[in-house]
């Protein structure tokens, strides 16, 4: 299964992950 997030954010929002990275609930995905 898959979860797709689509969201509006200030343009300086940055993802702190990379494709292929394993993540767990609550881990940082991105920040301003």
């Amino acid at each position, binding site marked *: 299964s898959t979860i797709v997030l689509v969201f509006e954010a200030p343009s300086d929002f940055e993802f702190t992950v990379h494709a292929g990275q394993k993540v767990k609930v609550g881990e940082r*995905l991105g920040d301003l």
Partner: protein
Amino acid sequence: LMNAWTETPTKWYPLPLAVGALLLVAIQYRKKVKKARLEADLDENGMEVIRLKGPWHVHVIGALPLRNMSRLWGYVNSLELPIWFRPYGYRFYAYAFGCNLDEIEPADLRSYPSLGAFFYRKLKDGARPVDPAILVSPADGTILHFGTVQGMQVEQVKGITYHLDALLGVERPGHAPSLAEHGRDMSIVDDQEFANVNGIEYSLEQLIGTSSSSPQSSGFSTPALSSHAPPVRPPTEADALLAHPPPKKYGERIDASVVEPDRNTVAHDASVAREMGVRPSMERKGSLGARNLRPGHSLFFTVIYLAPGDYHRFHSPTAWVVEKRRHFVGELFSVSPWMAKRLENLFVLNERVALLGRWRHGFFGMVPVGATNVGSIKVNFDQTLRTNVRGRPPPPGTFSEAVYSNASPILRGQPLNYAEEMGGFCLG
């Protein structure tokens, strides 16, 4: 060969014009066919018609009865296993798919009656510390892809895109007002008849005016009646509608929560709104706030793939308010990275539940997408949602919608905090 090449006389003569003309016609015709094929992909609203596109094996998989296979898989995994077998079976599954048995709750493997129950296991409290960032992962899994939405096109994987409207659905003009709107028409609730018709002993006016009890999770609670009896008038058609709502047609909005607030809830939600930094949404930006972004804002997306061995409940990725959900009954292709790289439109063909709302920075959407082995999607605050039900799926892009406006009148939606459990994926 040399003689033939050197001695054969070259004879020049004009090509008949017809051949040139035929060539032009052929080129024109090919262009027209190509354009017609592109046009055919657009429906009357100019939206791209979602079709199965990809290499031949994708079409072979598309011909399989995926939904029936998924339901059979779910049925088999709902069968109760003998108690003595459960530890061995679940340990084998954990070994094969890399599950971490130390963090599950309850830890005793015999307490899971079936593989389906084990698949929908919970985690121990504290097993997932929450990062203070504004966006955290909603699930255990692998980041398949992420980036910025350019021109309403979302990238499935490098090079393959689909339209955001196809993923989230488009507001349709002239939508039938939902029961919730009828239900909130104060003129029909200040009426003893309405109360009787609905088997309750008070009207909403009395609830808001007198009671201090908190609402039950389903239906109405029955606080003490206020002293004055409201004027009685013959039941209207709206009372009858509320008493016996018509069967839901596909695509019609239903209200997933009929809990009416009382004063405490309203005050509590106002404080939650301040805490979450979410504006009480009086202005209805429509579900696709994605269209009218605030200046200096962009639209981002990220795709997280949950492998069979991952913990399959999903949590809230931030503090946000879910205003509505759109359930798209679709196919149940595998969503593995292998398939995502080959099957275009995978996430807009599959069964999915688009949860739409807003957070402190504007529009926010979260879309759990089902797959062959996990066709069922549960949302804790939406008991009316049923996924992967029997029957032919309607054309891609049609959805049934539920609004959560009654969950909280101040926030006009279901408020969720960081890492709050929202629901999950079940086998079959």
